[in-house]
């Protein structure tokens, strides 16, 4: 589903990503972990071209995103993204946050968009909040709305950029549970996270980045029990 080939990203003179190549298959859940500043978020943001790679190629469903002829706006419709700081639209109600893009971008009717939005709100456990505004929700509720908003576009792939890092500890679980459900439903997911327990439990594969280099890649058991590189060993000792 996603193919990344020799990806480089530079900010000024600083090389953030160095020659990264990997694949993510349809239905696969991949967690991207590593120390802060290792380029995890930048890597994720290159997958929907919120960051433009300096060099290298990214394909989604055999469509090359990095090709200048690709309509990137159209391609992004299939890629949902959830941010650390939610970024809900504060002037729209929860329901309108969910229906805006399906109606305006995909041209769905209001009835259909609202019907689907209500199903999604039920799925993330927020049926009673459809008329609320984002500023009246807790962090965990906001993030669940943000997940529902991304799902409303019926994406084939979901990107999560540290979805629980900005949450109070007691709200982390409700968000992770929604993500677990989503993973079990067969959604293809790429997750940047510091939640090692979650990554271990939910992921099919772990990608370990350090200083912009893809150092290790493998199953959670393999990675957490027998990390191959000393860098990964150090990292795991510190976080586990």
């Amino acid at each position, binding site marked *: 589903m996603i193919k990344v080939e020799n990806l480089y990203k530079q900010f000024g003179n600083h090389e953030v990503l160095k020659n990264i190549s990997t694949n993510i298959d349809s239905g696969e859940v991949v967690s991207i972990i590593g120390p802060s500043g290792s380029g995890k978020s930048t890597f994720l943001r290159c997958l929907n071209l*919120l960051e433009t790679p300096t060099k290298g190629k990214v394909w989604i469903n055999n469509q090359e995103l990095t090709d200048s002829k690709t309509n990137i*706006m159209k391609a992004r419709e299939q*890629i949902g*993204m959830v941010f650390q700081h939610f970024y809900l639209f504060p*002037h729209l109600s929860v329901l309108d946050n969910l229906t805006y893009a399906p109606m*305006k971008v995909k041209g769905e009717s209001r009835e259909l968009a609202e019907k689907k939005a209500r199903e999604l709100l039920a799925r993330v456990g927020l049926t009673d909040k459809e008329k609320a*505004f984002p500023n009246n929700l807790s962090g965990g509720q906001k993030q669940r709305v943000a997940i529902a908003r991304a799902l409303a576009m019926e994406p084939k792939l979901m990107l999560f950029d540290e979805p629980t890092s900005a949450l109070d500890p007691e709200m982390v679980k409700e968000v992770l549970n929604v993500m677990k459900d989503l993973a079990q439903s067969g959604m293809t997911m790429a997750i940047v996270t510091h939640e090692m327990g979650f990554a271990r439990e939910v992921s099919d594969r772990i990608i370990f980045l350090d200083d912009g280099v893809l150092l290790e890649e493998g199953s959670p058991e393999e990675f957490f029990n027998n990390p191959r590189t000393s860098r990964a060993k150090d990292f795991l000792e510190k976080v586990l």
Partner: protein
Amino acid sequence: MNLDFSQIVPYIPFILEGIWVTLKFVIISIILGFILGTILALCKISRIKGLNWFGDLYTSIFRGTPLILQLMLIYFAIPQLTGYDISPFLSSILAFGLNSSAYVSEIIRAGIQAVDKGQTEAAQALGVPYRLMMKDLILPQALKNILPALMNEFITLTKESAIVSTIGYLDLMRRAQVVGADTYRNFEPLIFVGFIYWILVMVLTLAGKRFERRLKYSD
């Protein structure tokens, strides 16, 4: 003290007619200034260098020269250059609309830039095109933050509108002068229109406050 407001009583209908004459061009100027100002603000934040340059140049010219000079240039210079006999009404709208847009564009630019960059990223990630994103997602949020500054600009424009009296446009101010010349009494008509200007600005202020409160719903 030699005050006699009864002297201007016969002229009150004449002066009151000036309210609409003033409001008519002030309202159109505000709308014109707002629309042009929005377009200029988008020019200034655009990625196209030529548009940035145009927006900055425009602002520097209209903010850097006196409004009364711009008004007179439009009213007196257009007929000289083109032979088109421009009316005081049209001159006033053009001068005030073009001038106001320079100030409004700066206010809106600052408002757009104050909206969290994450809002743009969220919109892009959903595949929302630039035009829709600006119209539905970014500008409404910017507008809420800049409303007090915008009201300030509208109030200034309403008061400064009095300088159109210098090109013979029969607005409130000009009517006060006409009555003054007719009755040889200046204090009473000037105080009277001063009071009317104050009322107009108060109405505008209260309307602005109400609007601000209505936008607060999402906090």
